[in-house]
């Protein structure tokens, strides 16, 4: 259970009003419980990323949503690519995987 107070200590340089605003703007999506917000580790990492984007990379607050949206799309694609790779790894026969690999790299892989 990660509370908002714990997040504030885990992420150095983070101010409570900033975090609360990001939650309101749905840049971070902690679970809401009777006892307040509950964060998961992915949320903490995302808060850290948002703070770095704003303070170190100078992405201003207005641009944060679009930058995060693009990153989310990118990660979505990469997650799917990984899932696809795993599915192929579990189901495709070796020669099919080799054929795909040689198709993608543009040359013939040596026999494994």
């Amino acid at each position, binding site marked *: 259970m990660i509370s908002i107070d714990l997040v504030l200590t885990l992420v150095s340089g983070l101010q409570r009003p900033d975090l609360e605003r990001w939650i309101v703007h749905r840049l971070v999506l902690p679970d809401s419980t009777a006892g307040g917000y509950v964060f*998961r580790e*992915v949320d903490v990492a995302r808060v850290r990323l948002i703070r*770095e984007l704003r303070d170190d*990379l*100078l992405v201003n607050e207005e641009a944060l949503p679009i930058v*995060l949206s693009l990153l989310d799309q990118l990660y*979505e694609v990469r*997650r799917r690519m990984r899932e696809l790779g795993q599915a192929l790894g579990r189901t495709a026969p070796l020669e099919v995987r080799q054929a795909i690999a040689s198709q993608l790299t543009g040359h013939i892989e040596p026999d494994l």
Partner: protein
Amino acid sequence: MDDPYTTLGVKRDASQDDIRRAYRGLAKKHHPDLNPGNAKAEDRFKTISAANELLSDVAKRARFDAGEIDAAGQERPPQPTYRDYAEGASGRRYSPAGPDASGWNAQDLGDMFGSMFGGDHRGRGDGPARGQDERYSFTTDFLDAVTGATRRLTLPDGRTLDVKLPPGTSNGQVLRLRGQGAAGWNGGTSGDALVEIAIAPHPFFTRDGNDVRLELPVTLTEAVLGGPVEVPTPNGPVRMRVPARSDTGTELRLRGRGVPAHAGQDAGDLYATLRVVLGKPDAALETFLQTWKPEHPGNPRHSMEANR
């Protein structure tokens, strides 16, 4: 462990502002969340962060400068980056489709595997979609373009297309062959093949819209005395009379012997421009010219002299 000043590319007497600026510049380039899948950027970013960690803290920087701690002295265990979660299952929380959107749907699979089952199909939804138009170029003979012809075009993939050139096809014209492009998707119709026509030049004919021109060599006798000559036309040779007293540059018109009538346009004409050719040396001609007194002596270069 590299020297943190070198890592950030700043001098040892750099101000805190310089250090912050240098760090921001490098972080923008190497931040791992902006370079997913680039392990080199990640390593570089860790080094940059560690250097910044040390130098951005005035107290730590002073201890490092004084040699009390080494560059790695205050390095903290690396924190997991957002990417470590984002690409895994927990990253689905921030999926553009929403955290509850479950994995894969038919369209995703179509996006990924569609090309396995017949051609590109960009920009379509789930429904039937028309195949892409495909562009080709085809170089044709001059005469085929004038009179019209059907020619076979072999595509890069080995298919053949019969291209029907209409009479009067012009250079650069694009012919649309319906249904000969890429196959459709989900039962959609095929795209069209768009064939751009290039016309190879002819040894003696040239096109001028629907008219055809050529330069017709004639003998001195034919030019001076006139006489029947055979003139090549796009539809085969035609006999005509060269009028007496013709000269180089005399233009003769053969009505209707250019591009055939097509698509509601009248047939064009053939223009033959005469060019007198003397041929091999002729003793009799030379003897005659030595005694010849021209009826109208004149200077053919007169107009050039006037312009001098």
